[in-house]
């Protein structure tokens, strides 16, 4: 059987500062009818650019400089605008990362759904909207006959993403490009969307390119996987074969990230004074309580992971500990002594003992200060070191975070990579010589390899300096690799807490089970098994529950 799509030695360039620089360097790609190809790679790998090029489309400021894209006998690179327009939406469809931004806010969902079929003359409006409702039903959207008549902002993110998948299917295309369709969603919602996508692609035997940075997701969705790195193809193989036996070093290292797990520490003596203890804290923004009666302890030298989906109150808990938000009730203890509620009333010693590392290293470092100034400030402020003593200490800290002092001392944050910036953030926290550090989603903005490096560094520092970590995260893979104890939060309450080993062994609180079981695993059969286990109806129910 001939290929549906063949991309031959394609080169794509993007313009920045009036200079064209390469984004994709001579990648080949082929796709048979009904086949799903996974495109994976870290940020900057050119996955989306390649996906769009498969539609003969380039974003503003990009161009295809050479190569061909052959779709069912038509070369999309040299085809006229009219020919391409006739294919897009009709035979090749696109599902974007953020459905909320990709639906036009001014029109009802169903009107946007029927637009492509009516414009391409595939169906008349009535036919197409009837078909839309059937697709909604098939995708297990709640109220399939009614949901289309809402405006996009009236529908939740996970449902919107499924509606967009239905919209892509409107003309029964031969090929759909999925561009990170679940990246912006919480894990429990992600399952529903993944199941919906996989079902509809199988039902209509549609070929698809599935773009993602998440290996576990691609394992569930794709027949074949192509790995990209900075615009170059690393390797391509069948999914199972690739998972079991990756050939290239880069692929192997990607796979290995998943296996990082440090041994759990022995349990704490009963009766030991925790370093930080949150006691019955209730806190509110305005009149709405975002935390209700939250209590947990963090013991010396341990890592406590606080997990939960967005809006669960885990960051608010951190704000209460640092004193940025004064609790309405309850208090925070440090080494057994009660801390003043607001950071303004805490003394220098109390401030120094608890430090924080932020999610976005970009906004956490002043872009106008050099690395030495950023790290040097707490050294001077808390330790009173100046001149050569300060420089010496800054160099020590830089060495500790594995950055060569002479090379990095005088750079600005903009001259560092994401991972290096995060390391500087760590060094700034260490400079205060604290006992306790809050890590707020420190790895979630980073690529997996870089994130792993940061986790290893944090683990080593904990061993040498005896630090206590509060690790706020939504990523359960991170929890598995670094945590000693786990606190699960939902809607401002602590659902469950306990040592890691116990937490990952069911049975538990239903929410903990749901959350933990929703984390995709590398096993290609994981989604199938999970759906069987839960029963398909369960998914629809969960969606209704979210309404």
């Amino acid at each position, binding site marked *: 059987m001939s290929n549906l799509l063949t991309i031959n030695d394609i080169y794509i360039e993007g313009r920045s*500062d*009036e200079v064209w620089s390469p984004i994709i360097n001579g990648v080949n790609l082929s796709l048979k009818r009904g086949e799903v190809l996974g495109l994976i790679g870290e940020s900057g790998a050119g996955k989306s650019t390649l996906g769009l090029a498969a539609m003969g489309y380039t974003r503003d400021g990009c161009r295809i400089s050479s190569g061909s894209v052959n779709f069912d006998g038509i070369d999309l690179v*040299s085809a*006229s*605008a009219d020919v391409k327009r006739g294919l897009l939406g009709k035979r090749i469809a696109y599902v974007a990362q953020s459905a909320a931004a990709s639906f036009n806010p001014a029109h009802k969902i169903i009107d946007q759904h029927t637009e492509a079929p009516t414009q391409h003359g595939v169906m008349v409006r009535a036919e197409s909207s009837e078909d839309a409702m059937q697709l909604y039903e098939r995708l297990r959207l709640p109220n399939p006959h009614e949901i289309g008549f809402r405006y996009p902002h009236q529908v939740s993110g996970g449902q919107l993403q499924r509606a967009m998948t239905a919209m892509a299917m409107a003309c029964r295309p031969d090929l759909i490009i999925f561009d990170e369709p679940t990246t912006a969603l919480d894990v429990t919602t992600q399952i529903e969307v993944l199941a919906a996508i996989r079902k509809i692609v199988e039902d209509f035997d549609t070929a698809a390119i599935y773009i993602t940075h998440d290996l576990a997701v691609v394992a569930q969705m794709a027949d074949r996987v192509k790995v990209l790195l900075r615009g170059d193809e690393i390797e391509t193989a069948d999914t199972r074969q690739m998972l079991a036996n990756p050939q290239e070093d880069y692929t192997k290292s990607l796979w290995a990230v998943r296996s990082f797990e440090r041994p759990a520490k022995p349990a704490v003596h009963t009766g030991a004074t925790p370093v930080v203890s949150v006691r019955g804290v209730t806190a509110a923004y305005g009149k709405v309580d975002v935390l209700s009666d939250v209590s947990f302890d963090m013991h010396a030298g341990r890592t406590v992971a606080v997990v939960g989906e967005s809006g669960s109150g885990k960051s608010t808990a951190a704000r209460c500990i*640092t*004193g*940025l938000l004064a609790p309405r009730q309850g208090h925070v203890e440090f080494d057994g002594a009660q801390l003043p509620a607001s*950071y303004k009333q*805490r003394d*220098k010693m109390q*401030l120094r003992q608890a430090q*924080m590392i*932020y999610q*976005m290293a970009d*906004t*956490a*470092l*002043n*872009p*106008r*200060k050099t690395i030495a100034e950023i790290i040097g*400030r*707490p050294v001077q*402020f*808390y330790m009173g070191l100046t001149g050569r003593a300060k420089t010496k200490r800054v160099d020590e800290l830089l060495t500790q975070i594995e950055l060569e002092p002479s090379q990095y001392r005088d750079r600005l944050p903009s001259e560092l990579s994401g991972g290096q910036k995060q390391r500087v953030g760590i060094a*700034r926290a260490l400079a*205060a010589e604290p006992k306790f550090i809050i890590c707020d989603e420190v790895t979630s903005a980073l690529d997996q390899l870089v994130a792993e490096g940061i986790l290893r560094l944090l683990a080593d520092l904990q061993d040498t300096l005896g630090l206590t970590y509060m690790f706020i995260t939504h990523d359960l893979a991170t929890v598995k690799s670094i945590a000693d104890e786990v606190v699960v939060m939902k809607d401002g309450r602590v659902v469950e807490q306990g040592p890691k080993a116990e937490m990952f062994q069911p049975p538990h609180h239903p929410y903990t089970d749901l959350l933990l079981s929703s984390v995709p695993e590398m096993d290609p059969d994981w989604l199938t098994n999970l759906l069987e286990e839960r029963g398909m109806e369960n998914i629809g129910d969960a969606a209704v529950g979210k309404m």
Partner: protein
Amino acid sequence: MSGFVTVVLFFVGMAVFAWAFRSVARALKPDEPVFRDMPYATAFGYIFGLVAIMGAIWLYALSRDADPLVANKYFFAGKAMEAFVLFTIAAWLFRVVGRSIGTNGSRKLFRQMPLTASFGILMIILYSIAAIFAGVIAPYGQDEIIQGVAANIVPGGNPAIGGNPEFPLGTDQLGRDLLSRLIYGAQNTVGIAFVTTLLAFFLGGSLGFLAAVLGGWFDQIMSRAVDVLMAIPSLIFALLLMTIAAVWAPRLGIPLTLFMVVIIAVIDSTRVYRLARAVGYNIVVMDYIEAAKLRGEGMGYLIFKEILPNATAPLLAEFGLRFCFVFLTIASLSFLGVGIQPPLADWGTMVRDLAQFINFAAFAPQVAAAPLLAAGAIALLTVAVNFVVDWMLHRSSGLKS
């Protein structure tokens, strides 16, 4: 009405021609993507541009016509085009020079600079020189009534039509040298506008940052007060307050110009406040400010070491825009007769005093040039500053994405 019909027919003609041009091009080169995918509007644009260039050349030819009646009529069109070409060449040369001397950073800056921006920078430099060294450059004093020289000498220096080579721009109705007054105008108008803008920035900037950092009731009160002040159109408010100041000034023995500086600075500081507060607020919500607060840093360190260094770029662009605004407000007030007071030479007042000469343009174009030169001097500087600001804003927005 016939003029209207001519214009419509003209456009229809261009439309037909554009269609024909695209069709012929497609027929000759059917596989050339440029023509195949060319929208009609683009084809029309090419034809329109072609016609505009031909029209300009034709106008210029008319301005050099042997018949003085025709030449006079197109005198200004011709001069405008000469000025345009001259400025373009000057800007281009300036950029070439900028690319080859100076530090690596400045060279890189000039390499990426559009012609409009290099024109703007060149003009700002020239105006600054004229303003600072007015006393040295100007042949006469700004209010010097030159003995033995007639009033209303025609610009251009041609004795045949009432000019005098010693006074290339002529003299005004009191017999003062217009060239000197124009140069001193740079010192007075630009200088006063600059000082006013500085004052507005000092006021609005410091209050805006304070509001962003402190928040709470201070921010609330300041912002509501600024809302109210901004609800009165600034020129109207300035005129109202100038009326009052005009009564107070002689009683207190303070020059009215000083009042004007303060009044405009206060009115304009409201706009600066808004921007400074917004910029400050965007910085205050950054995590590095939170980190500094949690470290226990004081207010002074926060404002001067953490916030200000990050606010300079947007504030600099705003300074350019505000300067233009202040400059135009002062020029307008002077033009209306309540701004900079005589005997100081200033461009707004010059335009008002000389405006009547425009009516002579049909038969003696040089006579009409004087008021337009003063008005043009105002326009040229604001255009120049705006070009530079536009480029700065474009650069900073481009860097973000």
